[in-house]
């Protein structure tokens, strides 16, 4: 029997889900200190895990940076990766999630060929079916934007590519927010603030 989670490995039969590889999203919060990105990526390199997507930006908390990283690995591995990250001095928190825990999006931009689009009606059909948004057309190319789940974005790209329409393609890293009602970072910061006062007081 194949694994229900990844469809690849036979671990479910052995009831050893901890060995099953699947897509995880890591949300990592750090102080805004230079050089942390390379420290974080080095942790993946050392453990031979590929980063699928990576997004770095300021979080809603002033001075705190948010890293959104996706990778495919086992749960044991993702636990070790997050523990290693939290060990870096300026990392506040590192947690891992599966898709069920998150609201998430990716964006893609494409440059497609106007002559191909005009000569093959399937092109505009595919764009419309996927809800892609064309925001500029000139005689050479059209620019197209699509935001959504990875699978939809990739399906649009793959179909257009098969039709020979794609000149350029770029996909953003995944961005996401958690479904949980608990705000882990806020709770952590509040707890640490209390501990700071205990030490000073």
């Amino acid at each position, binding site marked *: 029997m194949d694994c229900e989670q990844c469809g690849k490995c036979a671990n479910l039969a052995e009831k050893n889900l901890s060995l099953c590889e699947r897509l995880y999203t890591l949300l990592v919060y750090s102080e805004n200190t230079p*050089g942390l990105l390379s420290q974080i990526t080095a942790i993946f390199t050392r453990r031979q895990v590929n980063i699928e997507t990576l997004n770095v930006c300021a979080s809603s908390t002033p001075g705190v940076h948010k890293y959104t990283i996706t990778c495919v690995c086992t749960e044991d591995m993702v636990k*070790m990766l997050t523990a290693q990250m*939290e*060990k870096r001095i300026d990392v506040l928190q590192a947690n891992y999630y599966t898709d069920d825990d998150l609201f998430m999006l990716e964006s893609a931009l494409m440059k497609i060929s106007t002559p191909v689009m005009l000569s093959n009606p399937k092109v505009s059909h595919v764009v419309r079916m996927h809800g892609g948004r064309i925001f500029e057309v000139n005689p050479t190319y059209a620019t197209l934007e699509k935001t959504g789940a990875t699978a939809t974005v990739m399906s649009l790209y793959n179909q257009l590519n098969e039709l020979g329409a794609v000149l350029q393609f770029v996909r953003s890293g995944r961005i996401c927010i958690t479904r949980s009602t608990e705000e882990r970072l806020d709770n952590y*910061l509040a707890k640490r*603030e209390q*501990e700071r006062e205990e*030490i000073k007081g």
Partner: protein
Amino acid sequence: MNKEIITGAEALMRSLEHEGVTTLFGYPGGSIMPVYDALYDHRNTLNHILVRHEQGAVHAAQGYARVSGKCGCAIVTSGPGATNTITGIADAMIDSTPMVVICGQVGVSMLGTDAFQEVDVVNVTSPISKWSYQIRRAEDVAWAVSRAFYIANSGRPGPVVLDFAKNAQTSMVEYQPAKVDFIRSYNPAPAPSEDAINQAVALINSAERPFVLVGQGVELGNARAELKAFLEKIDSPAGCTFLGMSALPSDHPLNMGRLGMHGNYAPNVMTNKADVIVAVGMRFDDRVTGNLQTYAKQAKIVHLDIDASEFNKNVKVDVPVLGDCKQTLAIITEKVSKAEHKEWISSFRLYAQIEYDKVISKAIHPSDGPILMGEVVNKVTEATHNEAVLVTDVGQNQMFACRYFNFTKGRSVVTSGGCGTMGFGLPAAVGATFGAPDRTVCLFLGDGGLQMTIQEMGTIMEQKAPVKIILLNNNFLGNVRQWQEMFFNHRYSFTPMANPDYEMIAKAYSIPSRTVVTREELDGAINEMLSTDGPYLLQCAVMEEDNVLPMTPPGANIDEMLLELEK
């Protein structure tokens, strides 16, 4: 009040003094000259030891830290000065040694231009240090130094690198001492969870065959007394990692010996027979566990550690207890029931006897043939009443020294564990003499390892550092030769080595020395070495093709130790 305006370099001196630093190991150069200039006025408070190579400075700082419990400190210049410290930084990281390394750096206006002696030290050292930071403004000196010492010393200790840009050394600043004792993103010693403690207590209470694995964390946490109380209350035998050896007196009735590849037979066998294992401040290194697939599978495991990333890294544990073991051991001891495990404890004796008959007696009391490493170590530990500090280099000398040296006092083992750094011994021993000036420091090393940092004999000469250097000369890179004999069909590829006249070298450095070739001379020579004030080199011509036994071959099951080799 008049605030004082001083240079960044002077601010570094004040900050080091503010942190209680008294001893520095270093080597000057262009990009750190303003610091050395400032140091000239602080020679009364900051004892700077000039080493002969920057690798020596870091290893000496490590030796100093390991025996004193204080943070070691090294100062070097930029570029090659900084890169020469890399091995020591990596070594301190894996062996959890608190150390602050301060390197010079080119001025900020020249950063990134491939300026003379510019190396991207922060990026080079960041994966092998606890924290690596570039000081670019004199205003940041006090804060960065305080933060560096706080990070190096707290939690699981480790090395910190401060990359000190030259402009920040020379520009002026209104100095105010800083005290960092809180970093919100870093919680060095989280309060132990009650839940975890209770689970640990329940497991320990249920144990019929408990076994405690003692690591260096016990020493680092100053928890020797707590460990002893814990062991005695639950009446559990214990085994020590090499780095944890002096956390429990060697002659304590519950101390069953050393764990791992070249450890003792009984504790390794019993690891796979115990029903509850309590690991304290150790990290299940592959040299300790052997084959993980068969390691302690029958046991429930409680793991006490201050570093959360160690839990379930190599060995799945049933109850991880995060926290400072001084605290967690004390709480658990308070809560567990007193127990007695006489039969279980005496069952260790059988294996200890087998090891004694087949290995130990031959290694330490040979009747004929050339001098053996084991017997030299045994004689030195006896002659120093098991009270000395043991420093080793790496190789067979290290394995024999760790197997046969015994301990009565804490913080007595200085050896390169996780990194296995040849060349560590001589400079680390120099550092140890400054970290524990009242103790005898005995260094065992091989002819290979001595030559890797032999230049530190210059430091020993200048400082009259009382290192008792015991050179176990087998004319081979012995440890590699042993593996070639055992696993590579006796093909001695580049392990025989022509040696210089070490007595002549010692003489050139004004270090008294003696060479012994026969067993009869050994006691006299050891006495002479120990009764000589200051440094001494005792060269022992030991058996060339001796093997360290017992041995768990790499990847083999930990309870399947080879006690003898088929010849």
